[in-house]
């Protein structure tokens, strides 16, 4: 069983994707065309990017339920500031606002030692309220058409957002696996007390993690907003479910300590394929939510098996 779980950890999500590709290419004659594949990948970039941040948070033993509201806040910031200060500065402000919320999360969790669930749930309320207040409860149309280039433009025939996502993947991969910060994040996630005793600045690591989560959410929001050209205070409701689902399905342990960025990337592609499949049969948006919820349950089931067998192995004294 442990062997199976190890195999699953390495290849399981690939199996999901292969099954999905085979199924979809039978179901739709258009699926195996370059445009469709690029489209599916592009649709998956949002989940992937927020998922990278969430992977980091789960690795550190926490999580963040406030990503939706952070995305909404950034979106509203863009719509408000683009006419006033121009596009580049507005993007900077939007991302900084996101990072600021992340810092607040991190400060409350690390310094006040409040449970991450309560902290990020409250922050979700507060920031949603703030976004609605700034926008006056309405959507704000952005009139500067050139802002659209960022999210809808293509370079060498490939949508820009895919490059941005890949860039983020490389950065996060490097940070998580090849820097001391990344190792400290894993250490804090597997045993906070031990890391503290061995000299890791646990509080700083946690604050850094939540800033990064919010930062990726903010940047994802910039791309989405540029595609819609609307600042939406209610943008991306339910997105936290998607972000957590791709992270857990990708094999990042809920117990903390082990992050799997590859898994997150592939799981995001898989969820995007599920969306594509649902669109094929013309199902409403509610079915997307249902499907992602069910995928999360499957992912939790597998994670539950893993936890159980690891415990059993530990009890028998087998080294895993």
């Amino acid at each position, binding site marked *: 069983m442990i062997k199976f779980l190890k195999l699953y950890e390495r290849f399981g999500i690939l199996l999901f994707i292969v099954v999905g590709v085979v199924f979809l290419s039978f179901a739709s004659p258009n699926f195996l065309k370059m445009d469709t594949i690029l489209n599916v990948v592009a649709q998956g970039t949002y989940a992937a990017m927020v998922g990278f941040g969430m992977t980091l948070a789960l690795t550190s033993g926490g*999580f963040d*339920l406030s990503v939706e509201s952070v995305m909404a806040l950034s979106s509203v910031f863009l719509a408000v500031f683009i006419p006033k200060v121009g596009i580049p500065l507005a993007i900077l402000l939007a991302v900084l606002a996101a990072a600021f919320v992340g810092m607040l999360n991190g400060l*409350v969790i690390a310094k*006040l030692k*409040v*449970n991450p*669930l*309560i*902290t990020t*749930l*409250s*922050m*979700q*309320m*507060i920031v*949603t*309220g*703030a976004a*609605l*207040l700034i926008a006056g*409860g309405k959507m704000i149309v952005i009139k500067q058409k050139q802002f659209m280039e960022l999210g809808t433009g293509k370079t060498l025939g490939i949508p820009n957002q895919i490059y941005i996502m890949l860039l983020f993947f490389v950065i996060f991969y490097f940070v998580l696996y090849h820097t001391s910060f990344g190792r400290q994040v894993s250490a804090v996630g597997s045993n906070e007390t031990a890391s503290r005793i061995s000299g890791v600045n646990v509080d700083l690591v946690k604050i850094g993690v939540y800033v990064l989560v919010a930062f990726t959410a903010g940047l994802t929001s910039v791309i989405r907003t540029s595609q819609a050209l609307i600042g939406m205070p209610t943008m991306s409701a*339910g997105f*936290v*479910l998607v972000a*957590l*689902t791709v992270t*857990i399905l990708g094999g990042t342990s*809920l117990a903390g300590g082990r992050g799997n960025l590859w898994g997150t990337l592939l799981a995001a592609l898989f969820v995007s394929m599920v969306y594509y499949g649902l669109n094929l049969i013309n199902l*409403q948006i*509610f*079915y997307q*939510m*249902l499907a*992602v*919820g*069910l995928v*999360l*349950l499957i992912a*939790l*089931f597998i*994670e*539950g098996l893993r*936890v*159980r067998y690891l415990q059993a192995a530990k009890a028998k004294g087998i080294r895993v």
Partner: protein
Amino acid sequence: MILKQRGARVVIANQWDRFGLPFLLAVLIVVFSGLSESFRTVYNLVSNFQFAAMVGIGAIGMAFCIMSGDFDISVGSMSALVGVLGASLVPRFGGGVGVAVTVLLATALGFLNGVFVTKLKIPAFITTLGMMYIYRSLAYIYTNNTPVYIKDPFWLFLGNGVVFGVPFAIILMAVCYAAGIYLLRKTPFGRYVVAVGTNRTAARLSGINVDGIKLAVFTMVGLFVGIASVVTAATLGSVNPGMTGQGYEFQLITAVVLGGTALGGGNGNLLGAFFASMIVVYLKNGLGMKQVNSYWQFVAFGLVLIFAVGINRIKFTLLGMRET
């Protein structure tokens, strides 16, 4: 009380437990009555009591859940799903069946949550997060995103009826609290729940069926959400698959935590949860009456929860306990 020997700090903490929340509630009512003409009408104060029943009844189940060291954040969606299902049965089978199905289905869904939580060995909040979206989307799909109206007199009576001059919802809430407090203080079950919340491993080693307790607790959450959903649906006259129960989990957690139950579990205060749910409802109503932009209410409630956690932190520090 052994605790009393530790002096003034303990006295302060205990007095807060006893008088703090009622005092806060009184201050709130006085302040809003002073500020708003329409707030201080008897009608408003009583109808608020009815709304308090929605939060108050649900908070009993959530209190047991948090005492046992877990959270259930699927309650809002659960309320919407069972509400639309129950209400949709009324035209064909009558109000009695509709109410019964609402309560029983909620209990069953709570049981289902419990099965997932105990069998998967995964923190409950994440399992129930998944269930939250599943229930919500099922409610949308079942109704095709249209509200279901309730016209049945029996069902409407449960939320709006008056018995001997007292609104029925308040009587129902009182009965639920009496049952909850009895269960918590006078039965082994209550002690087991607290024991599981304090130290799960120790509870298991001393022979408590931890999974069984968890299963029972999540089923209870479902039961009380079911009862609260019936009252809510009657008071509002309809169930909306998208709007019903939005933010309900947040209100319940706030009521329980503000009521003095420790976040990590291990102690419980049902009377506190009662007063805290009144505070939550009067605050919401008062802000609404003062025409405060409803978006500020999001901010206010987010801050109230953090404030509640802070109060608990101070209290447990005074008592020399560590909150996890």
